[in-house]
């Protein structure tokens, strides 16, 4: 998704087709980001819709120079989700309930193992997010969920990049602690190669085994090397 300064100019000018393009290219990202901040897919849809409407209202604050407008939209979505989940305990309650709901779906024999693992991974992600404080969760969602760099996340949140870096680092430590004792499902794609190098005592956890699990890797590695 490459957004030109041209699109920024058109957005500032209030060109409706620019917003249509913006919606097409960013709706999914905003939706997913909102889910990570609300733990609820239907709320995430509401937040996504509100975000674009708010973006329309705030269009004249867009800097004509710059790259993708995605960080800007994700920042608006973050504020919108914040209003929805004023307190962290509400988020925790919802996230933990959603995680439990994912896990409590009965495992039918015909449900393929991959699907079951998907549910577990989603439940794990929600539980991990619920263990964070709101400012940490927002940084995690932006940087790890949507892959923004520190500068873009800083722009989205209106805070210094250094604060993003330290929050993310702190959140990582917490995530590590929160997910320490449980193995993940098959580590797909990018994560597997690196993660497998790490050997940890508890990687094959005590989860009731039903399907073969020969490819497990911990979600997070033990502390080492900074991200700076």
């Amino acid at each position: 998704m490459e957004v030109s300064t041209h699109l920024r100019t058109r957005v500032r000018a209030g060109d409706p087709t620019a917003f249509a393009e913006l919606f097409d290219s960013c709706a999914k990202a905003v939706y997913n980001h909102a889910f990570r901040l609300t733990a609820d897919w239907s709320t995430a849809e509401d937040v996504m819709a509100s975000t674009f409407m708010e973006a329309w209202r705030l269009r004249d604050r867009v800097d004509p120079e710059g790259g993708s407008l995605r960080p800007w939209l994700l920042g608006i979505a973050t504020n919108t989700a914040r209003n929805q989940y004023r307190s962290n305990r509400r988020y925790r309650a919802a996230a933990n309930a959603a995680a439990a709901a994912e896990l409590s779906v009965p495992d039918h024999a015909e449900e393929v193992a991959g699907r079951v693992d998907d549910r577990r991974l989603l439940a794990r992600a929600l539980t991990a997010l619920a263990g964070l404080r709101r400012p940490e969760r927002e940084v995690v969602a932006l940087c790890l969920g949507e892959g923004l760099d520190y500068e873009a996340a800083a722009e989205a949140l209106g805070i210094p990049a250094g604060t993003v870096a330290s929050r993310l680092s702190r959140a990582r430590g917490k995530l590590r602690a929160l997910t320490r004792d449980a193995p993940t499902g098959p580590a797909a794609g990018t994560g597997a190669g690196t993660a497998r190098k790490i050997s940890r005592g508890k990687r094959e956890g005590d989860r009731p085994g039903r399907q073969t699990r020969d490819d497990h890797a911990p979600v997070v590695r033990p502390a080492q090397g900074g991200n700076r």
Partner: protein
Amino acid sequence: MNANTSRQSPAERGEDSTLLSRTARDLPPGRHQFHKERLMAQIHQEERTTAPAAAPAPAPARAWWLRLPRPAITLPVTAAVVAASVVAVVLTSGREAGDPGLADGPVLTTTVGAASTKGVPQLLDRISLAAADASHPEVKPGQFVYVESRTAGTYLKTVDDKTTLASHALHRRQVWMSPDGTRGWLIDPAVNDGPEGETLSLPDEQGNTPEADLNGPSYDYLARLTTDPDALLAKIYKETEGQGNSPDQQAFTTVGDLLGESYPPAELYSALFRTAAKIPGVVVVQDAVDAAGRTGVAVARLDEASGQREEWIFDRKTYRFLGERTVQVEKRTGEDALIKPGTVTFTSAVMERAIVDAIKQTP
């Protein structure tokens, strides 16, 4: 995407993308188009009816945008009117049971007490004086602040497009936290996966001291906060700017969070109440019940956007802080209508606060 930072190693991205890999999905079929068309319709309508507004202060998304399909109307319902509507207790099915170790509870309800602005400063003054009198011990390094509470909550849960009310049954919650906020432990069956609880400790890979802030204060942070109510309030407004449904409500909530699960030095504790007295819209509710069933008088504020009132409950004689709760007092529409007036969406009673020498140690 196109913005990965060079300062995150590929390894870290890998591990992290695994953790969040299942939190990405497409919109349900047809919804992308539906929302796009609605956005375009709204843009066209706004273009016709209003000139492009010079947007005011850098405010974040307004609450009334949150639920777009609904008209942004604040119903002029007074608490007294709402009080007349008695709400039946709704039992949720335990089928999709909540967290392991904690059964779903019944939806908590209460009669909505009448609110009055009369006597607010006097009440807060008394509370503040009582708070200044109480002796709060100092926490030494190596020790832990222990807070035990009883808590319950009700929230909306959506499973496969079906939204229902769900509740956490009343349960005990125990928190240990080191004064610097870096080490801690939490036992709360509504949060934990297992009965032993979970760590709140923060190993920081760079050896940085984790920053405490108003949203996540450590004891040391609280001990350093100004006790001048005006300065404290200014700081709260500044640092919570853009959060919550309105600046005043967010300020009230922030003070409430500082009261709830903490053990601040007496001087600050007292100052918090003098600070609250300066927030517009604060009311007194004569009849409030905490999670442990203790009745008292409440200092409260209505969040206009959500129709929920946050109540801090105090002993009527000693003015000791008993706990806090959030009550739906105004009717809402759409999914939020499931939370009927009289529903207690959150309640927490402080049962014990102490300084202990180790995690998982109780007084």
